[in-house]
């Protein structure tokens, strides 16, 4: 949840790899026990904490790797979550071989199911009983895929996708922009964002293409790609 475990890496619990905040770990463990090992309670407790709610902008010179929890760590969405989010935003689906249409990436049980996206963004190969086997480090292939992949591009411009539906409904520019912001970022556009976006979509190109480009932009934004 925090982007970094009290014990890091999270599955490496041993005497020679102590927790960064042993008192906190003990306190959480005791509390967890006292509440009958209620995971929901634990999650609620963490989410309500001041530390969890810290903002992400901080002075990284002091605490680059977030070991002291002085600021919120940016974390890229996990591969499966990310793919599902892309599908939600574009109103499309990804079909996985041998699985029913509409299966969400998060529900794909078998790591051998072919998916370039999941491979590129790192998924657990489930060769060990540890979810930690998902690699979250960014790399060039991921950037290339988000920017330039024909698959993502096809999702954005899909005939039954969100953009196509919005264009068909023929709403105002501002309405469409607001819906795209809500879908990708879960918040309305600010005034200045709205103005900038309106400027982008007002030109002699096709309306469909303009909004495709806007949606691409939002989907490639840090705000969409990262938990923050």
């Amino acid at each position, binding site marked *: 949840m925090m*982007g*970094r475990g009290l014990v890091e890496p999270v599955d490496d619990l041993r005497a020679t790899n102590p927790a960064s905040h042993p008192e906190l770990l003990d306190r959480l463990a005791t509390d967890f026990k006292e509440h009958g090992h209620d995971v929901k309670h634990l999650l609620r407790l963490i989410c309500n904490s001041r530390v969890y709610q810290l903002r992400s902008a901080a002075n990284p010179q002091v605490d680059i790797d977030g070991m002291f929890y002085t600021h919120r760590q940016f974390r890229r969405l996990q591969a499966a979550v990310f793919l599902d989010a892309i599908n939600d935003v574009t109103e499309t689906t990804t079909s996985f071989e041998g699985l029913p249409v509409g299966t969400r990436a998060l529900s794909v049980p078998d790591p*051998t199911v072919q998916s370039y996206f999941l491979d590129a963004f790192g998924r657990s*190969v489930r060769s*060990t009983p540890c979810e930690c086997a998902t690699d979250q*480090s960014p790399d060039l292939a991921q950037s290339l895929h988000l*920017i330039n992949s024909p698959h993502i591009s*096809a999702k954005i411009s899909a005939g039954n996708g969100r953009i196509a539906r919005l264009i068909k409904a023929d709403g105002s520019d501002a309405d469409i922009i607001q819906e795209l912001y809500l879908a990708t970022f879960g918040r309305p556009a600010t005034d200045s964002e709205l103005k900038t976006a309106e400027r982008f979509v007002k030109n002699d190109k096709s309306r469909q*293409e303009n909004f495709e480009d806007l949606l691409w*932009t939002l989907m490639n934004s840090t705000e969409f790609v990262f938990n923050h």
Partner: protein
Amino acid sequence: MFELHAQQPSRRCDGLHRRSFLKVGSLPFFGLSLATLLESRAQAAGTTTDNLSCILLWCDGGLSTIDTFDMKPDAPREYRGDFKPISTSVPGLTVCEHLPRVAQQMHRIGQLRTIAHTGGQHAEACHFMLTGYPQVPDVNAEPVGSVIHPCYGSVVSEQLSWRNNLPPFVQLSAGNIKYHHAGFLGSGYDPLRIKSDPNAADFEIEDVSIPSSVGADRTQRRRSMLAELDRFHRLADQTAGAIAERNEFYNQAYDLITSPAAKQAFRIEQEPADLRDRYGRFREGQAALLSRRLVEAGVRFITVEFNGYDTHDKNFIELETPLLPKLDQAYSALLEDLAERGLLETTLVICMGEFGRTPKVNGLAGRDHYPAVNSICFSGGGMKMDGFVHGQTDDKCSQVVGSAASHHDLAATIYSALGVASNKLSHNIDGRPILTTDNGHPVREMFV
């Protein structure tokens, strides 16, 4: 620990899936790597004399040197095995009968036989042989030590940076190669991993070409829209870590997408059919050909993986077909082609696996892991060729005669040939000072 996973590209005995290992503590490394990344890019702008490249033919699983380059025909049968030596282009020097075309290129190869290490399992052996440093992985091949070292290609990337808008380090392999990544330097120096098969009719690099439905103009427009609308983007200067790193990758991605040199380099179909035939119409053959094109275009370090050398059983059957014929064809074609184009002087070609194999044939007609001997083939890049052999193994290929050199020396030799400093000081995120090699000394005898 149990394994649930069945289908995997690796054919190694340990059955481990060769995924990328940069995950333990990867997040903390970002901050460091970006700073050094930017720094090295800035430095590279001033560099002038760097026309050197390297192609590593990696025989994954461990090439049996006693059956190929270091044969012992006079040893008892259970040692010398089934194969016979044949004469080569260098009088007095022999190689395995199943490497007839390589035999004709032996004047373009020099061998180093003094490198011994102690890594008896694949993962640690890969770390020894690909980074120069020891590593003790756990049963899942995950590193136990807190420092994962960068492999040669990543060090080259870090010290020498991009050239002609092409990534410095490319890996041509269906799967991942253990410890073949940037380790503590950060994923910015990982290889560009090309997993698609260059032998396939529809071969192309994932996502490098702009989709025709979008086109170059819109790609450019999207980029400028992103620059203006991404509010976190502007924080990047103050935000170390994932965001800054991602922005760097975005810039690299655009460099690659918009570079004509990159597109041209990957167009293997432009090679004449007879040359493609010469390299061999299979993945490794075409990958070797592609590596030559990448060298011409400006890539600094290319690894071509030859998979399946972990011959614990049926060693002789598998080597006879398909392993050695593929290596024979691709390796010999590469050396010949590089030489004909005058590229061999500036291109270091290395052929090796992570260890040799046991001198005595086992009950399954196989050979097991044996890190005490290896025979590493070097060509070009200022190394001695003409069948030169440095070092010697005993009459059963069971140990190095005389003093053995270490894995650190191997690393220093490779860095020295590529004009890379082997004593550069870096720090991992904990501030631990780490040298490119730990007191490695280039094996001077190997150089002209």
